[in-house]
């Protein structure tokens, strides 16, 4: 009973995950849990594999070892059809937006609705305009994706990710490229989606301040390992060197700013 309760608490749970890109180990036996209805953040330096982790959760990449459970289903053992059924309930906001470039903003947001439901066009119009309104871009509905700025494209992508009212949303860097005003709106929107609709949120970010404002729980990844975890307050007072360095933004410390390389001087003077 105890066990099943605990299982039900987690919408996503990752157990003993190991993943390689070629010979490089991106994840080394990590385990993470994402509780239902909570905002969980994954933080870590650029290139640690945050985007990779989201792709593993979404079933686009296959782990070398370990399991990924979403809603108690092992993502990598589902058939393609079952995986697609699951994905209809998972929204994902790509780092690049990944909008379809041959159709306009309105059709982009309407795309998942048209693909997966038989809702009438007038109803679709209402839904799409509502979603666009919530990201503050209803006025941009007739623009083509190439006419949007990077930050706008990402907000449209968010509107698209929530168009089918998913049970969870994975946000890849939602804050980068946003001005302070739209950033505030975004933070509020993510909070609202989470509290009003009980949507479980997974946020990938390296923006310490904004993430700490909305996250219930934070994992800090580095070098393929989890180097710190806890609520924002716990992490702020964390004594571990890794976490301190990351939260203070210092270049020197246990977390390497540099991509693994041979000695700098040796490299330069070699030739």
């Amino acid at each position, binding site marked *: 009973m105890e066990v099943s309760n605990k299982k039900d608490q987690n919408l996503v749970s990752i157990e003993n995950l190991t993943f390689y890109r070629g010979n490089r180990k991106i994840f080394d036996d990590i385990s993470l849990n994402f509780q239902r209805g909570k905002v969980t953040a994954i933080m870590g330096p650029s290139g640690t594999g945050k985007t990779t982790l989201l792709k593993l959760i979404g079933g686009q990449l296959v782990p070398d070892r370990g399991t990924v459970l979403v809603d108690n289903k092992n993502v990598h053992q589902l058939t393609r059809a079952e995986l697609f059924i699951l*994905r209809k309930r998972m929204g*994902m906001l*790509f780092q690049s937006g*990944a909008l379809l470039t041959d159709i306009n903003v309105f059709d982009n947001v309407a795309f998942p609705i048209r693909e997966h439901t038989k809702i009438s066009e007038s109803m679709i119009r209402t839904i799409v305009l509502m979603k666009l309104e919530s990201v503050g871009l209803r006025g941009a509905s007739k623009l083509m994706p190439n006419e949007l700025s990077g930050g706008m494209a990402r907000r449209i992508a968010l509107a698209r990710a929530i168009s089918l009212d998913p049970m969870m949303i994975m946000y890849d860097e939602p804050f980068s490229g946003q001005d302070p005003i739209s950033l505030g709106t975004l933070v509020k929107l993510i909070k609202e989606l989470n509290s009003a609709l009980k949507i479980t949120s997974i946020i990938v970010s390296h923006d310490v301040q904004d993430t700490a404002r909305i996250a219930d729980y934070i994992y800090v990844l580095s070098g393929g390992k989890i180097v710190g975890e806890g609520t924002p307050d716990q992490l702020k007072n964390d004594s571990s060197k890794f976490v301190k360095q990351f939260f203070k933004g210092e270049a020197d410390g246990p977390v390497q700013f540099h991509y693994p390389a041979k000695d700098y001087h040796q490299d330069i003077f070699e030739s």
Partner: protein
Amino acid sequence: MICFFEKIGKKTLASFSKLGRATFFLIQVIKACLSVFLRPKLLLAQLYSIGVLSFMIITISGLFVGMVLGLQGFYILSDFGAEETLGLMVAASLVRELGPVISALLFAGRAGSALTAEIGLMKTTEQLSGMEMMAVDPIKRVIAPRFLAGFISMPILTTLFSSIGVIGGQIVGVIILGVDEGSYWSQMQANIDFQGDIINGVIKSIVFGVVISWIALFEGYDTIPTSEGVSRATTRTVVNSAFAILGLDFILTALMFGDI
């Protein structure tokens, strides 16, 4: 030396694995084709951009090729006093060989390269993986309609090419060089065999349509997601299609017309 053999080995392995992926891709696409008929709008849009937009280049090229055939044919045939068979010569060359082959080469350059670039860019900008995450199968939604459109367009474009070519031959042979109009058409009618010539030409064009669409879509889908990757894939589409068309044409001709 060892390095050299190692390279050959690696290249061979790589091309076999690519061939494997391409075959698997084709099977998936063919399976997905059934679902396209449930969504005719997707197919219509592709028939327009792949087929209709190729009409111009096919028509103009067909006209000129027919005119050249009329001219060359007239000079050679008139040496033997056989100008009346000009219509037959023009039509036979077009229907059997030049129609299917040249339209396929043009189609690969016009539509095939565009397909590769389009799909390759969709992959590079994560649109395909975005679709997958929205539980939309890109093979069904994006690839299959384009494949079917290529399959349907090619025989139609080839027929157009050959018909316009025959008219081009007539313009030069009959109107300009004065071959008798009656014999131009009657020789053609009497000697072009529906089964042996026309159907075989159509079969060739269908084979070419499938092969070009397959190569173009696979190259786009399998591209390395960078701008250089897309540009290389586009080049490969045109080059590989040309090889495939010419090679297959020889094989098909041998099977259809030869006694091999």
